[in-house]
């Protein structure tokens, strides 16, 4: 059974490694903050901000590939100056993620790219619900197989006891 437990230890480590890479990618490319988190403590580096485009605030300049709008958090409202692709994606009252930098001089957010709401909870749930039971199912089957193999080896067929025969 030692080999069996070593094999499953390695599988567990690999699964943790993939989970770690997934979390890193989430932190790097997917996670977003709201205007409520950005405006009280503006940061210079590139951030992803999630919010709703305020109704009546959107104005597009299709030829220049430019748009100006306000992004609404729960309490705070962020003014955004966007320059980039996918202007069609911008619609009033739509929830979006804008990547860009806070400009302290204009006190506006300079957006460079757009993406949809990540909904990563659904992705994580689907993968965990798919992979964890599969591993558990496989672990239980392999363990049962190893135990059965030992049991079959140890179980002897009935052999009549050899009784001492009185030769006299």
């Amino acid at each position: 059974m030692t080999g069996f437990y070593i094999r499953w230890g390695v599988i567990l480590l690999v699964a943790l490694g993939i989970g770690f890479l997934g979390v890193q990618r989430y932190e790097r490319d997917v996670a977003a903050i709201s205007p409520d988190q950005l405006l009280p403590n503006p940061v210079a580096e590139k951030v992803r901000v999630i919010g709703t485009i305020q109704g009546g605030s959107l104005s597009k300049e299709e030829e220049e590939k430019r748009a100006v709008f306000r992004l609404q958090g729960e309490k705070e409202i962020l003014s955004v100056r966007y320059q980039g692709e996918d202007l069609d994606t911008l619609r009033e009252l739509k929830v979006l993620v804008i990547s860009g930098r806070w400009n302290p001089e204009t006190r506006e957010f300079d957006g460079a790219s757009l993406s949809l709401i990540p909904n990563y909870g659904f992705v994580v749930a689907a993968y965990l619900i798919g992979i964890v039971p599969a591993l558990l199912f496989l672990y239980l089957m392999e363990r049962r197989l190893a135990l059965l193999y030992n049991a079959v080896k140890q179980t002897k067929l009935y052999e009549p006891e050899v009784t001492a025969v009185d030769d006299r």
Partner: protein
Amino acid sequence: MHKLIQWMRRLEGWFGIAAALCIVVGLYMSLVTSPPDYYQGEVVRIMYIHVPFAQTSLTAYFVLFLGSLWYLWKKDPVIDNMCHATAGVAAFFTAGELITGSIWGKPAWNTWWTWDARLTSAFVLLLVLMAYLMLRMFMDDREKEARYAAILAIVGFVDLPIVYFSVEWWRTLHQPLSVSQRGLAISPEMLIPLIVMAVGFYLLFAYMVMIRTRMLYLEHLLEAKKGRLLSQAHL
């Protein structure tokens, strides 16, 4: 030892290693390197686990169908063990398909479940497999049990083309086939991780069936040994 069992013992390790490699690479590609979808965003990543579950579920049932025909022809108890093992694994993959699909349905369609032709026929497939496993659980006569189960699996096969073609035959909420005679409806950047994951799942299915078949075979062997021991002791 039966030839099929010997063959499985020899091959299962390779299948296990290949499945693990494909799934590890597939998970890395689907969670880290593949791009988000223009319409669905990050949620499209659920496809890389849901579609392999669905494809493997259908393949598993097809294997069960062929195995059942083979059993009725040969009446070999080890083939019956393989069918029984396949049914358990097929039920697992079908349940996985329905659950991951339901999780994808919420952000994509704004509902966890709908009585759509594809979803309903897949659910019926799960019910057929549950009926098969229950039949195997509650019958005493092993030969009758195997025969009835094989007949049930063959009758239940009617549902398989319905599941597969439901999105073509009826207007459904579920999207049509991505790979069909009309061509490819998926970008290569998404197709490659999907293929890697699908191959990994097929190999995992084969590995699971081999393990489970040997498990059932050993269970019966142990039972037979103990039974003989007991009957001898009672003589």
